[in-house]
């Protein structure tokens, strides 16, 4: 399936919940409403023409000071999907507000989302609703804050032993 056909199929199925689509450098991307994310992902995985059986990556972006995004949600959660049977890809994005950074968990669809969502929680502080075990993945429990947020001070260090800055 061509990338444009994938996006057209999503738009046909979900209508206004697909807020925008684009294909920068051939990477087909759909920006969807956060509330529709579980259904969109479920459809992507189970639809016979799409069959995205592999979650390649799940990450987030912090657009805190990004030019031209003053009115848009601060965060975006990003899903990279790949279909082994059809050999095609798509990227699903959804805006996440700073006040309530809660995203529906994708663990029921793809078990690999467990660790990916823990990493996003660790680095960006986005919560995943109904995640089975939402702990930090990479950093230690004593770490305060989320270092990949743009407002984390670049020089702030939190060593467990040794001198603090």
């Amino acid at each position, binding site marked *: 399936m061509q990338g444009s056909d994938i996006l057209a199929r999503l738009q046909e199925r979900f209508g206004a919940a697909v807020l925008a689509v684009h294909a920068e450098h051939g990477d087909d991307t759909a920006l969807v409403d956060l509330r529709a994310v579980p259904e969109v992902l479920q459809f992507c995985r189970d639809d016979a023409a799409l069959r995205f059986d592999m979650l390649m990556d799940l990450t987030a972006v912090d657009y805190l000071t990004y030019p031209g995004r003053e009115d848009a949600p601060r965060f975006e959660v990003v899903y990279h999907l790949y279909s082994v049977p059809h050999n095609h890809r798509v990227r699903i994005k959804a805006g996440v507000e700073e006040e309530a950074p809660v995203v529906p968990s994708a663990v029921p669809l793809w078990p690999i989302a467990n660790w990916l969502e823990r990493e996003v929680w660790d680095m960006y502080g986005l919560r995943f609703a109904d995640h089975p075990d939402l702990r930090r993945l990479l950093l*230690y429990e004593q770490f305060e804050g989320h270092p990949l947020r743009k407002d984390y001070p*670049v020089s*702030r260090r939190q*060593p*467990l*032993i040794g001198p603090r800055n």
Partner: protein
Amino acid sequence: MGVADFFTTKLDEALGWARKYSIFQYPFVTACCGMEYMATACSHYDVDRFGAGLPRFSPRQADVLFVVGTISHKMAPVLRRVYDQMTEPKWVVAFGVCTCTGGFYDNYATVQGIDTILPVDIYIPGCPPRPESVLDGLMKLQDKIAAGRQRY
């Protein structure tokens, strides 16, 4: 110089000479520098020529702690514990710029030089250091070991 001083001096020299050629190392390998460490340890550069050919994978049997690779803040207590478990006399080699200063990992995750958490005897800079640099550092460590004085 008294007779006692003469004997302790000669004993120090004998101990230093023996120790410098029987370095049992503990390689604490965490990152890409490990490749260069392996290249140095294998037959082409042959670290065994310097009596350091037997890495011990228990800190209790080791004399020299080779810290090879980036140390994160999460790993730092583990490294400190390994150091504390080694018996005296012991030495520490910082292998590569990450262990010397943190290297280019000037960020929230990385220890900015392992000398902030434990005493270091020899620094081998490089990203990663060439085996020649490692051997140079090893020979400097041997000089330091040979010149070491005992407390009686």
